[in-house]
């Protein structure tokens, strides 16, 4: 597990929204551009890394109880997405690393994927 602050450090990421939530802990991560897969296979409190920037990404994060979103390869999300993220209090991070490298860097720091981690229930 890592805190969002540690995720930022590892990925040299900037915080688009959610500056006050950087002490939040993430237990697992998932790299995906397919929101259908995120909806079907992720656990709650997961960090999503994605290259998609449309509104459906934040809707998916909201209903799936994801912790935060990292946009990879320097992509900046659409303004309507940012607005919903603020409203739903889901932190958004931006990194220049492409998907594979961003995932690899976090995995190297011990952040596991959704298939290997124990199920955690948080209220």
């Amino acid at each position, binding site marked *: 597990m890592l805190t969002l602050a540690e995720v930022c450090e590892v990925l040299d990421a900037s915080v688009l929204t959610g500056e006050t939530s950087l002490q939040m802990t993430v237990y697992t991560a998932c790299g995906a551009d397919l929101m259908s897969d995120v909806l*079907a296979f992720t656990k709650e409190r997961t960090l999503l890394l994605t290259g998609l920037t449309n509104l459906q990404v934040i809707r*998916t994060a909201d*209903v799936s109880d994801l912790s935060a979103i990292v946009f990879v390869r320097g992509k900046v999300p659409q303004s309507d997405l940012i607005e919903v993220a603020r409203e739903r209090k889901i932190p958004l991070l931006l990194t220049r690393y492409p998907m594979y490298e961003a995932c690899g860097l976090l995995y190297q720091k011990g952040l596991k994927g959704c298939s290997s981690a124990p199920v955690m229930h948080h209220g």
Partner: protein
Amino acid sequence: MGEPVLSVVFELIGGDFSLAGDASSRVKRILQQAGIPAPVVRRAAIAAYEAEMNVIIHADGGTMRLEIHPDETRLTVADQGPGIADVGQAMQEGYSTAPDYVREMGFGAGMGLPNMRKCADRFDIVSAVGEGTRIEMVFRHNGPA
């Protein structure tokens, strides 16, 4: 099953992707405020979103009805869409008729209906070509995850 403790109906507008997911997000918040257990809320919210996206993608419009009963939550999503010719085929993982622009949004992978069935404790679908599709899902508050 008697009268629900709470019943809300959301209108869904086909093709309006700026609002796609808004009803499901509201469903989630209502369930949270009602004190439904978090794992049940998550399963219901995910299933609601999958169903809502299907209406936005495939139909002109439809409705999502949320009913909270003491022991279970029911979601009924009905649309005036093209209907599904072969429901058995549509229930298979990976089968999709969604257009490319939907795939570019990260959807249309053919996982929606199977995922709804996985999330719900009971899942029923009735569809008629040219008339529409109706999905009923039940989420037991103390049911299996």
